[in-house]
Every structure is written in C-alpha cells, then in structure tokens.
C-alpha cells in the first residue's frame, strides 16, 4: 500500500513535469523538466519493483542514475557549443 501511495505521488509529479516540458516556453525549461522527469522515472522504477515484489530491479534505476548524466552533459554541450560558434571564440 505504501508503495502504491508513493507511486501515485510520483505519477502526479511526472504529470506536472510533463506539463512544464510541453509548455516550455524556453528550451531550458524543457531541459529542466526532462531532467526532473528522469529523476522521477528512477523513483517510479524503484518503487514499481517493490510493488510487484521484485526489488532487484534497482539495477535499472542505477543505469539511469549513471547514464542520464551523459545525456544531460550532451544537451548542455549542444547549447553551449552553439554559443561558442556564435561568439567566435
């Protein structure tokens, strides 16, 4: 029951973050919302493992915790890279 409660809370959070990701208005808002969505997915997967009685799924959460960083850094490099090209450095 407690896992279901937590999952409901996480789902509400995901819905709100999704709304921000769709609304924008700037690209940075979307990046922020997508980042937050990533964290919430980690929580959802971890909690869902407990809900269905197989908590060894936490490997999946670990992948996200580690690999998501590469994606985030790539996004921010993309943003800054354009900046560098425009600045002519």
């Amino acid at each position, binding site marked *: 029951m407690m896992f*279901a409660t937590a*999952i*409901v809370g996480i*789902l509400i959070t*995901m*819905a709100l973050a*999704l709304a921000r*990701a*769709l609304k*924008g208005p*700037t*690209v*940075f808002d*979307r*990046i922020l*919302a*997508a980042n937050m*969505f*990533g964290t919430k*997915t980690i929580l*959802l*997967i971890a909690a*869902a*493992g407990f*809900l*269905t009685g197989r908590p*060894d*799924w936490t*490997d*999946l959460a*670990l*992948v*996200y915790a*580690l*690999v*998501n*960083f*590469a*994606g985030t*850094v*790539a*996004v*921010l*490099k*993309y943003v*800054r*890279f*354009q*900046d*560098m*090209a*425009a600045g*002519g*450095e």
Partner: protein
Amino acid sequence: MTFPIEAIVFLFLLATALAVTHLRDLFAAAMVFGVFSLLSAGLFTLMDAVDVAFTEAAVGAGISTVLILSTLALTDPREHQQPVRFAPVAVVLLVGAALVYGTLDMPYYGDPTAPIHKHVAPEYIEGAMTDFGIPNIVTNVLASYRGYDTLGETTVVLTATVGVMLLLGGLGGARHRGDAEVVEAAGDEEPTPMDRVQVARVSTTVLAPLIMLFGLYVQFHGDFGPGGGFQAGVIFASALILHGIVFGLSSLKRVVSPRFLEIGLAAGVLIYAGTGVASLFRDGTFLDYAVLDHHSAQHGRHLGILLVEAGVGITVTCAMVLIFFFFAGRRAAKSEEPGDRDRRVA
C-alpha cells in the same frame, strides 16, 4: 492492486508523442523525446519486461540523445513547414486502423493460454534451471536457445556501423584508415567548450570510471539479473562518449583510437562466431555450448554464454563509440558556420 498505473503511464506516453509531432523546434522536440524514452522504459518495467527496459534505459538516457543532438548540429534544428498532403495522411490512418483492428484478435496481456506461451516457452523456462542453472531466462534465450538470431543481430550491428562509416566518412572507397584520419583531424580542430566548465570536467572524471565499472557488472551479471552484452556495451560506450563530450574528441581519440575500435568491432563478431566454430571442433553443433567443457555440460554452457556475451559487448561498445566519432567529427568540421541560436531559445 488494480490501480491502473500502466494506463496512466501510457496516457503520458501518448501526450508526449503528440507533443513531439507538434513541436516545430527540433531541439525542443529532442528534449520531449527524451521524456518519451523515459516513459517507455517505465512502461516496460511496469509490464515486467525488465531486460527490454534495461536496453531502453541504457540507450535512451545517454546515447540516443547524443546522436540526435549530433544530427541536429549537422542539420537545420528547425522543422520546415510543409503543406499538408492528404494521400499520405489517408494511408497512415488506414494502416493505423488496420493495426488497431489486428490487436483486437490478440490475446490479453498476461493471458496464460496465449499461443506464445504454448509453443516453446515452457521448454525454455524449464530448461533455464535444469540445463543452464542460470536464473535470467532472457539471457538463456538470447545467447543459447536463440543463439543464431543473436549472432545475426550482432552482425547487423557491425553492418550498420560500417554503413554509417561509409556514409559519414565519405564514400571514398576502401581506405578506412584514411577515414579515421579525417575524424582525428576534425577532432583536433574542435574547440572544446566544456574546457571552461570545470564542474563538468571534475564530475566526469569521477563518474566515467564508475559507469565503466557498472558496465562490467552488467556484462558479467547478465546471467543473474537484468542485463547482458548489448546493455553493457551501450553503458560502457556511454562512459567513453561522456569523456569525448567533455574533454573533446581528440582526447577520446587518445583513449581509444578509431583504428582500435574498428578492430574491436569486427573482433566481437569473430569471438561470437568463433565460439560456434569451437563447438564444431568438439563434435558439437554450431553454437552448442554443452561440448565446450569435458566434465559438465552446464559448465560448458556457462562458458559459451560468457564468451558470446563478451563478443556482443565488445562489438556494441566499439560500434557506439565509432558512430559517435563519425557524427561528432562531422559536426566539428561543420562548426565554422555560426548557429542561429536565438530561434532555438525562443
């Protein structure tokens, strides 16, 4: 527990997909597409397909974002307005309706009498423990029962990477080494914007080895938990690509040279097929691992799966890093043109 979590996640997925098609700014679409990937991994997890979710997580969180952004840097980051043509829309709607009609005849989710659970699945599930002693049935099926298919998939990875190399490295013929040098030269010229971001450099130095360690864990723990060669290869490649993003292509080139990656790409498939040939020499059939060990068929199967998964892991790692090399090298060569960032931000 009858709470419809899957349905809610599926609704999120639908909303995200509609938003991706609606957005004209392709960078924003790429961000929302990242959310789509997260959601589908969550949905796979909720539907008990942990190994599939694992792949989606490993690919979607890191590498697919990197490749989409590399593509955007090469092309126009804004979708051009095109007039709506009705014939394609009608075709899409028709095919979609046909597919939905087709799902009506499909067995319900989790139905034990579904045909897929009747045919060979019970044999695989029984055999997982008696023949192999390996808890993760998915690994058994991939590496042993369906070993031929997986060999084919690994070869597809090899072929696809060679295709990317030919397309992006120019169709200049068989001079692979020449292509590699083009990438290296482009990497040297590339300004590394992350040079100025000390935080990203320091945290990458700490995280990249941990990601690699976790990749090895996934590689060798795939028999017992979710994971295996494909996922481990992608995770391992993510660490290398992270290094390349933060420290620049030329630095990554010093860690792993394109030549080394090309050799590894082919060597992985060779290890896989070589394991099959080795079992032929021991009077077994192709990819019959039981004969690899004199004393115990189970040990032989363990050894075979280990070798085969290692081959898959090596090929996938090299393929991913090579594709990154070629995309990012292209981007560096093109980076002289000033980007129109204002439209992107707005």
